[in-house]
């Protein structure tokens, strides 16, 4: 009884700032920008931008996988480190998050561009300016750099809580190191993997600043298109339609990841 009352402020918050805006988005998506009449034109126009949707999802997926590959050993190492070192390493992971992500992306621009720090250095060694910026690899680099902490932290939480006796038990029963990892550690950390992938994938798929700064002129992602509809073109209706479709696609992707890990403790995630 008491708990339910405690939740009321949040419930009201949810209704006011999540459900109502969502309804507004749906309303805008199905109305015309000039007349306000009901229309499917916004949804129909979406077909032209299908390749951009796929490209955004693809780049976000690649980033999420790279984050997992890079982040898992880091999280494992931190989780197994002595307590004092652990706190210090965690602080190092969190520290960059205290700086605005716009600033961090701008820093990458000045590192990577043709007259940037890296190319200037290479120039001194006699190596011509390399095309480091304005391509898809630079976008993925920006995404991985910005979202890596969101992968490491949930993985760390899961790995840190894991009972070491389970590993000892597996070893007693004759597992070698590889088997301990694939049969015990990896399945046990599945919830962390799922939430890590979700937390990297969702912001990455809708990002607009990173692609604008680090990508080429042919690298507009769906976030850029949505931003332009609200900021420059004044067509919030089409922007809303794009956001709605993107949201549904994200839900499908999350649903898929949750399904895959369904065996392992049904990890559900915000």
């Amino acid at each position, binding site marked *: 009884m008491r708990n339910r009352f405690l939740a009321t402020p949040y419930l009201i918050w949810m209704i006011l700032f999540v459900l109502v805006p969502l309804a507004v988005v749906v309303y805008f998506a199905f109305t015309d920008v000039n007349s306000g009449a009901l229309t499917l034109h916004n949804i129909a126009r979406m077909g032209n931008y299908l390749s951009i949707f796929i490209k955004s999802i693809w780049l976000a997926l690649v980033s999420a996988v790279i984050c997992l590959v890079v982040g898992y050993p880091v999280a494992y190492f931190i989780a197994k480190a002595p307590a004092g070192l652990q706190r210090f390493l965690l602080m190092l992971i969190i520290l960059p998050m205290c700086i605005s992500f716009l600033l961090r992306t701008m820093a990458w621009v000045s590192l990577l561009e043709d007259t940037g720090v890296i190319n200037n250095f290479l120039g001194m060694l006699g190596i011509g300016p390399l095309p480091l910026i304005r391509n898809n690899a630079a976008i993925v680099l920006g995404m991985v750099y910005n979202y890596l902490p969101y992968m490491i932290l949930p993985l760390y939480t899961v790995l840190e809580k894991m009972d070491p006796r389970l590993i000892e038990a597996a070893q007693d029963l004759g597992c070698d190191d590889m088997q301990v990892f694939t049969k015990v550690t990896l399945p046990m950390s599945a919830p962390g993997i799922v939430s890590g992938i979700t937390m990297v994938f969702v912001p990455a798929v809708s990002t607009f600043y990173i692609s604008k700064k680090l990508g080429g002129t*042919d690298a507009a992602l769906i976030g850029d298109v949505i931003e332009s509809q609200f900021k420059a073109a004044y067509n919030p209706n089409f922007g809303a339609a794009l956001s709605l479709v993107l949201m549904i696609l994200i839900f499908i992707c999350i649903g898929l990841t949750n399904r895959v890990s369904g065996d392992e403790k049904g990890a559900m995630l915000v």
Partner: protein
Amino acid sequence: MKKRVLPLFSAVLLLALLVLPLGAAAAPENDENITINVYNWGQYISDGTDGYIDVNRAFTEATGIQVNYTTYDTNESMYTKLKTGGATYDVIIPSDYMIARLIDEDMLRPLNFDNIPNYKYIDNAFLNTDYDPDNIYSVPYTWGTVGIIYNTAYVDEADTGSWDLLWNSKYSGKILMFDNCRDAFGIAELSLGYSLNTNDPDELRDAAELLKAQQPLVQSYVMDQIFETMEREEAWIAPYYAGDFLLMYKENDKLGFYFPEEGFNIFIDAMCIPKTSQHPEAAEAYINFLCDPKISAENLEYLGYATPMTEAKQYMDPEMTTSEVVYPTEETLARGESFLVLDREATQLMDELWLDVKTDGGSISTGTIIAIVVIILAIAMVFVTRKVRRKR
């Protein structure tokens, strides 16, 4: 008893949240402490750098009115901000065609010229314009032209002279382009020999095709970032406003400028008061202040844009008033054309085509599609096999 405390507490909290903003709004306004919201282009007022005048501070010192100064980077983003509301502005400084659109949509407030005595200094050439034929809504701030800025160290002089330089594959990846549809389409239309103000859908589509052909050569679509990018020589070629060339030239004297032979855009940016303004009189005082010939002279000497007041020129550095970049000769000016407001349909089509230009080439290779399909299939396979295993 205890059980009732919590809901009561949350109710009070919520009530307080609801009442708070009302109370703040109801507070009586102090006449001594008026703040006006000024919304202007970025890099478009002298702000005290390099020893020049800080216009906003000088205004506050002269009148006691505080200025909350914010900037936008394109006419279109200013329009969107105004249209979506959320913020009220007292003074805005859009360009000619955008003023016509705002008048057309009844978003501007007629000015009270009794509060703007300095209006008399504005030259006749800038009155009775196409965008505000009866001089009701706007007071000219500056005027200027669009041309090409290029780096003389890297760009062959023989390649200059026309807009074609922006399509020259020799300089692929070193070309910048306007990040607003009107200026970008204007350049393509001039290259094709069309009017800047065409409403013809086919001509607009031709222009969009030309811009799509340019896209692979373009380093990025930018507005005010052009300053830094050109000064550091990260890019070599950019179309931009003539006045800003002088600011960039101060930082890098290898930069050059020319007016393309096919013609170019002449614009007037003028000060207006939106209908939603809370302090129209203070806003008029601000407009009047900027029309003071001495202030205008100091302000525009820093900006490098042309003044619409002959009266102001006597206070300016002669080097500035004789610069042919800022004040082109009659012969050059004859090639200029100003923007007029387009039909609603044409504006919308231009917005859609502009999005197509910017998203062109976003298509992905077949290899990537195959990879995506394989991954999805693999995920499905894992899912299915697990289910089967579980059933056993």
